[in-house]
């Protein structure tokens, strides 16, 4: 008892807090005054349209995979608001470093549907995409893009360019040293980088409670010396608002920010996964009540920004775009085999020229 009393007399030298941001309730009603951009009906409609396109595109991609016309594919079902909301707050010149499930961000940044299909269809040309030339491609090794984001941000700061690196990864990635190391460095150098953890509750079959003992993922930023915020990741208005603030702060030189987007993966991890092996349909069903599209549609309809007719038009338009993209993807022939040598080095070393010839079926020159 004596020692307990003595401990209470020790001074507290640091206190931290983590806040949670939301704007729209699951029924689509505003829970607080909305950020300024919410007055821009055109922007809100664009956010909605992008999420719908992503969901319909995912559905088509899975159908292609199931019929042997696409490789393994990761759907964004249930978490569309995260990648779309974050990307919408970026400028063209900012640098996106996505994980493999951030199609929404790539699409917003100008990557074409057929390019995404090409990548998941097993063609490197999908990464030679129409989005900003400096954006990174999908990152498959979990969390390994976080140090790149810190490196990019260091380069931007060194050159005094008012640009920001935006790095997306999942809840599983926050368990990796890569992410800690990157955040720690970014904090030490006050780098212009925003880290976004899409907390969809499941890293394939491992639930968050086995991933970490931490109460929030957002608080992981605190140890790195900057603030973290938890955001309702099913609320695209809140996501956009949080990203806008974080990106602006990073751009203004106040250092990195961390956003934990709390959402739920309504689909399987990928087309190679069967989530019924590790979680109940009841659990998934319960989360459907909070999904981002219905919520935002309710808000838009309530605000007279969106109608049933708009919805029908959008569905038809998405269908048309997606079919055109699929057509384009399926009619793109594979590269000639020997081109696998063409981007190995800037100039193919002499030593490998014979191998290239062999693959091309040419005589050794």
């Amino acid at each position, binding site marked *: 008892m004596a020692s307990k009393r003595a401990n209470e007399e020790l001074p507290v030298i640091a206190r931290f807090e983590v806040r949670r941001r939301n704007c729209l309730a699951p029924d689509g009603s505003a829970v607080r005054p909305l950020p300024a951009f919410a007055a821009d009906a055109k922007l809100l409609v664009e956010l909605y349209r992008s999420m719908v396109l992503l969901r319909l595109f995912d559905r088509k991609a899975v159908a292609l995979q199931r019929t042997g016309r696409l490789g393994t594919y990761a759907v964004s079902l249930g978490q569309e608001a995260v990648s779309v909301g974050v990307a919408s707050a970026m400028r063209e010149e900012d640098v996106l470093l996505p994980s493999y499930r951030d199609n929404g961000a790539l699409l917003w940044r100008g990557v074409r549907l057929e390019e995404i299909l090409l990548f998941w269809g097993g063609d*490197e040309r999908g990464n*030679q995409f129409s989005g900003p030339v400096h954006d990174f491609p999908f990152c498959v090794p979990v969390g*390994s893009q976080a140090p790149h984001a810190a490196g990019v941000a260091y380069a931007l700061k*060194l050159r005094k360019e008012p640009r920001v690196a935006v790095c997306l990864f999942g809840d599983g990635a926050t368990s990796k040293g890569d992410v800690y190391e990157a955040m720690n460095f970014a904090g030490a150098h006050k780098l212009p980088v925003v880290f976004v953890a899409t907390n969809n509750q499941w890293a394939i079959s491992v639930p968050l409670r086995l991933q970490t003992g931490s109460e929030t993922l957002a608080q992981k930023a605190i140890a790195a010396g900057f603030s973290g915020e938890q955001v309702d990741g099913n609320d695209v208005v809140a996501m956009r608002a949080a990203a806008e603030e974080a990106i602006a702060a990073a751009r203004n030189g106040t250092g990195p920010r961390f956003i934990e987007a709390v959402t739920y993966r309504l689909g399987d991890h990928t087309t190679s996964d069967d989530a019924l092996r590790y979680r109940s349909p009841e659990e998934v069903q319960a989360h459907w009540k909070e999904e981002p599209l219905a919520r935002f549609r309710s808000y838009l309809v309530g605000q007279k920004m969106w109608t049933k007719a708009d919805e029908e038009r959008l569905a038809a338009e998405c269908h048309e775009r997606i079919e055109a993209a699929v057509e384009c993807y399926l009619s793109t022939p594979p590269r000639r085999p020997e081109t696998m040598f063409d981007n*190995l080095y800037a100039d193919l*070393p002499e030593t490998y020229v014979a191998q290239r010839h062999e693959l091309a079926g040419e005589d050794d020159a």
Partner: protein
Amino acid sequence: MPEVTLVEAINLALGRAMEDDPDVVVLGEDVGLNGGVFRATVGLQERFGSERVLDTPLAELLISGLCVGMAAQGLKPVGEIQFMGFLYPCLDQLVNHASRMRNRTQGRLTCPMVLRTPHGAGIRAPEHHSESTEAMLAHIPGLRVVMPSSPDRAYGLLLAAIRDPDPVVFLEPTRLYRAAKGEVEDNGEALPLDLAFVLREGRDVTLISWGAMVKETMAAAEALSAERIAAEVIDLATLKPYDENTVLGSVAKTGRCVIVHEAAHTGGFGAEIAALVAERGLSSLLAPVIRVTGYDTIVPMARLEQHYMPSVERIVTAARKACQYN
């Protein structure tokens, strides 16, 4: 021309590269004020500032990952890993990102980075400071692996590595950092990558080595000459991609091939060269290829390390055996 040590030549090349190109940045643990644990970066922070010569946190994975991010943004980062024993957290970044960024984006993003690290035994260092695992790195497509063995080649090859548009792992022989001295003109002239150096010409036997073992290999050649055996010595210098033509040309001339490396025997880079000679130089061989290497053991700590590393005597014996074969 001034005579400098190998580590001083590294320092000269780094300074020259930074002077010539504002995109070159140097990063690593203790590389700033302290000038690196081997003093390879000494004085650079004073000259170029702490933004371009930065002390990173103690995190090797981070150093290699930062290099990838910086390089993709157009900088030319030169990362330092204090010892090769601490390089392994970087393998994920080297295999999954640095080596394939150009390919996976079909040239949209590239990775002109250099990762430098001292390697090899013989300096009575603590555990984990003595390995030579270059073969592991030389197996990675898309990388370049360079191992200089003298001050002038260290200078010229490091400049070439920094200017190269692709990722390079640059392995510096710890044992020669101060032991190797030679004239180096700080003229900014790079040496070609992917080319081997013929350090001594001879008609009887080809001795192929790289890194610190070049020293013993040259000494062996000298000893052999007293026995009227004229050994040709090749410093391979770049292991990935390596200069097959110089190897094959020399073996065609001598008919005998002895490969010397400090790394463990099985799966060492000597096996690759032996396979090349078997595939494309068999008809010129007058004797079996012989490898003189470290043993297939963990590199022993200081008390036994001299017994692990190939000695001049072992090299001489192997060369003699090759010459006596009929």
